[in-house]
């Protein structure tokens, strides 16, 4: 074995950095390392725009934040997890403030808050509309203070090493040199984020390939609620760049081709000039994205070279508000669409944004596999249920990053140092090295390109498992994925070099994405109801009798999936009707 740590964290975004700091604070004697395929400040947390929700005002309450989250999640959230989340979110956010996060402020110097979709109270903290960027850089810069945190920047983890039902480390490739190393650990925390790249049109960065989800699934840890994929209602056509929900929270309107605020036709309330909480443009993301599809079917959207769009109208907000509260929206529109939201309508359409599902964890970030933890978008605790509310993901990665760090620290400290017999683990690691060196880097060219299979996978997912799904569409999608799975071993890798071989990484990511895509479609086929972001045209109603339950998908020894349905944890909020705008 080459390197040894007590705790290895895979991923250096918000959750990973928060977990690392939590480990050091809990137990400075532990050796902790972050392994990330990009430098930490490149992580996708950087792209979050609108804000982070946490109760801070006297007129707000933890129960109201919990209720908004649970009803927003269409009652699929585990309510004990939500209660812990809303309780700890303000403390975590204040720590971020103390660490230097440049939150936007009220005139008296207090942290400012703004409205957000699906929230009945004003509780979303923000740093203009670059909240994720500031949060990530604050965490990263603060983490530099802790010399105990070792970093493996630009290392790609290819496998979790598991023996006797316990995680013992990882195998990883250093990009710059191509060397393949075994890094052992008493506990591993997955913080690798989401998997938006399994779809063709996404706000997600190129690196969001579901690595941690697939690594856990292959290692025997189940994934939870994978059928719940969030479409954000306002992405820029072609690029998929996100226009933050804050644009609507500050008063932006969604208009169809007739200039009509069409959301009033979809049981989301009646239009008022200013923003109204839990109403119209401030409804939840699933309902808004579904309304777009209905509007498109009525022929009331606008045709563009990059598909159907509607318009986001910010003109009435004025240059001053846009420049102070939404500077990035203006910057992105000017740079990428050559339009100015101060005087032009912004074309937008729904875009894949976030995975509610992920590696199943308990309230402490622990997976059912001993020594394996997960936090952030890669994980499913679940506080997001069937539909995440905007501005809940940033506090989630803080709260559960810290929780996973503390739990992993406790677990690691209780393990003996020698760890017993390593021969089985080292054999696994040697097998993995052989796979990478001989089967992948040494592979002959002449077959299909990585991009060919990736593009077909993405198209299949959009057609079969998009905003609206049916047994028929998903069966076709599953067949397409099966066919791609069979073609995968023939994919070409023309690059046989060791130095920064991104073609090898892309091939590995493609394999991981196919596993994730299959788990999404398989879980979606079996859930015969419509709930939150999972809408079935053949089962249009929510079915609490059969499906007030999580989908827990395991990989069997032969590779086939097996799904169980453990019940949702209900504490104080029995299932009810989701009401918006009235």
């Amino acid at each position, binding site marked *: 074995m080459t390197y040894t740590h007590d705790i290895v964290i895979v991923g250096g975004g918000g959750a990973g950095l928060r977990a690392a700091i939590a480990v050091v604070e809990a137990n400075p004697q532990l050796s902790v390392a972050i392994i990330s395929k990009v430098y930490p400040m490149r992580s996708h947390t950087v792209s979050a725009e609108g804000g982070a929700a946490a109760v801070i005002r006297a007129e707000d309450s933890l129960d109201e934040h919990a209720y908004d989250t649970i009803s927003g999640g269409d009652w699929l959230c585990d309510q004990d997890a939500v209660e812990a989340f809303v309780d700890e979110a303000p403390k975590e956010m204040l720590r971020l403030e103390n660490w230097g996060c440049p939150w936007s402020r009220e005139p008296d110097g207090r942290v400012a808050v703004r409205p957000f979709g699906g929230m009945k109270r004003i509780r979303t903290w923000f740093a203009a509309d670059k909240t994720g960027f500031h949060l990530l850089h604050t965490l990263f810069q603060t983490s530099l203070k802790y010399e105990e945190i070792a970093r493996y920047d630009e290392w790609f983890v290819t496998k979790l090493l598991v023996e006797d039902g316990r995680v013992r480390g990882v195998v990883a490739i250093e990009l710059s040199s191509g060397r393949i190393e075994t890094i052992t650990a008493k506990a591993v925390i997955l913080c690798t984020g989401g998997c938006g790249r399994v779809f063709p049109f996404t706000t997600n960065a190129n690196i969001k390939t579901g690595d941690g989800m697939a690594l856990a699934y292959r290692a025997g840890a189940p994934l939870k609620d994978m059928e719940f994929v969030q479409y954000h209602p306002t992405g820029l056509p072609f690029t998929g760049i996100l226009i933050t929900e804050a644009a609507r929270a500050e008063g932006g309107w969604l208009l169809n081709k007739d200039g009509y605020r069409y959301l009033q036709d979809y049981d989301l309330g009646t239009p008022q000039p200013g923003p109204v909480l839990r109403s119209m443009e401030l409804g939840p993301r699933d309902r808004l994205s579904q309304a777009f599809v209905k509007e498109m079917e009525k022929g009331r959207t606008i045709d563009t070279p990059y598909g159907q769009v509607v318009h986001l109208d910010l003109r009435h907000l004025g240059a001053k508000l846009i420049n102070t509260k939404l500077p990035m929206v203006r910057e992105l529109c000017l740079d*990428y669409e050559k339009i100015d939201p101060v005087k032009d309508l912004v074309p937008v359409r729904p875009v894949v944004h976030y995975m509610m599902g992920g590696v199943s964890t308990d309230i402490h970030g622990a997976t059912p596999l001993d020594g394996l933890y997960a936090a952030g978008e890669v994980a499913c605790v679940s506080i997001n249920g069937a539909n995440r509310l905007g501005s809940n993901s940033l506090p989630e990665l803080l709260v559960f990053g810290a929780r996973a760090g503390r739990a992993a620290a406790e677990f690691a400290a209780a393990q003996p140092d020698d760890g017993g017999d390593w021969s089985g683990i080292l054999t696994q690691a040697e097998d993995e090295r052989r796979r990478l060196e001989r089967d992948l880097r040494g592979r002959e060219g002449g077959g299909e390109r990585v991009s060919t299979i990736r593009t077909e996978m993405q198209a299949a997912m959009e057609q079969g498992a998009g905003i609206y799904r049916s047994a028929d569409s998903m069966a076709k999608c599953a067949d397409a994925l099966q066919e791609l799975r069979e073609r995968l071993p023939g994919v070409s890798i023309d690059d046989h070099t060791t130095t920064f071989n991104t073609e090898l990484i892309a091939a590995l990511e493609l394999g991981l994405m196919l596993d994730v895509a299959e788990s999404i479609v398989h879980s979606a086929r079996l859930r015969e109801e419509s709930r939150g972001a999972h809408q079935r045209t053949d089962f249009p109603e929510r079915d609490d009798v059969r499906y007030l339950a999580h989908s827990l998908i395991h990989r069997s020894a032969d590779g086939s999936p097996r799904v169980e349905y453990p019940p949702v944890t209900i504490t104080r909020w029995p299932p009810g009707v989701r009401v918006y705008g009235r």
Partner: protein
Amino acid sequence: MARSITMQVARYRPDREAEPTMQSYDVPLRKDWAILDGLNHIKDELDGTLSYRWSCRMGICGSCGMTVNGEPKLTCATFLTDYAPGPVRVEPLRNFPVVRDLVVDIGDFMAKLSVVQPWIIRKDEETPDGEYLQTPAELEDYKQFSMCINCMLCYSACPIYGLNEHFLGPAAIALAQRYNLDSRDQGSADRMDALSASTGVWDCTYVGECSTACPKNVDPAGAIQRYKLTAATETLKSFLMPRGGR
């Protein structure tokens, strides 16, 4: 408008080549395509062996800085049509060792980050009950310097860094100032040694190329000039006051 444009791309694979060469590829010239879209077209359709870094493709992760027709640019926010009819030349960022193709080694910058202690330093031991109050005007004092995405364009543009790799450089100094000017911070004296050292602000001859190159209007040159004034005042104080004026 022509249908395609030639991209001349720097190639270097240290395992097999002694020095970099240029390779030409024809890519579609589309109105919405950034330089990065052209590179992705090459990688996906023409040549899978080309290596470069990219991620968010919305100008915020800082991964995709390269030299485009001689200037440091974020390739996701620089458009092919601005270089029509071409050819457009894409090379790695200057002033850094090249790892491979368009990928440079930024390890030196990563090490310098810690040197300027980019975190809030407090002299009081106890953590406050709630937030530190900070008025919008106090936020404005340092906000510009907090916008740096570490894209390295300023180091690539900086002639001083090109000559002397020990120079702390524009982004690291701007980041030090971001904390020095934050009303919540009490650590400016701790950062002074690094900033006032021979490799700190005094190395800068105020060429200003860093601020020209910066895609986020951070104005590192302004940060450096402002710190020179602070450092000079502090030095003067150390002569006049018995305990160094700190």
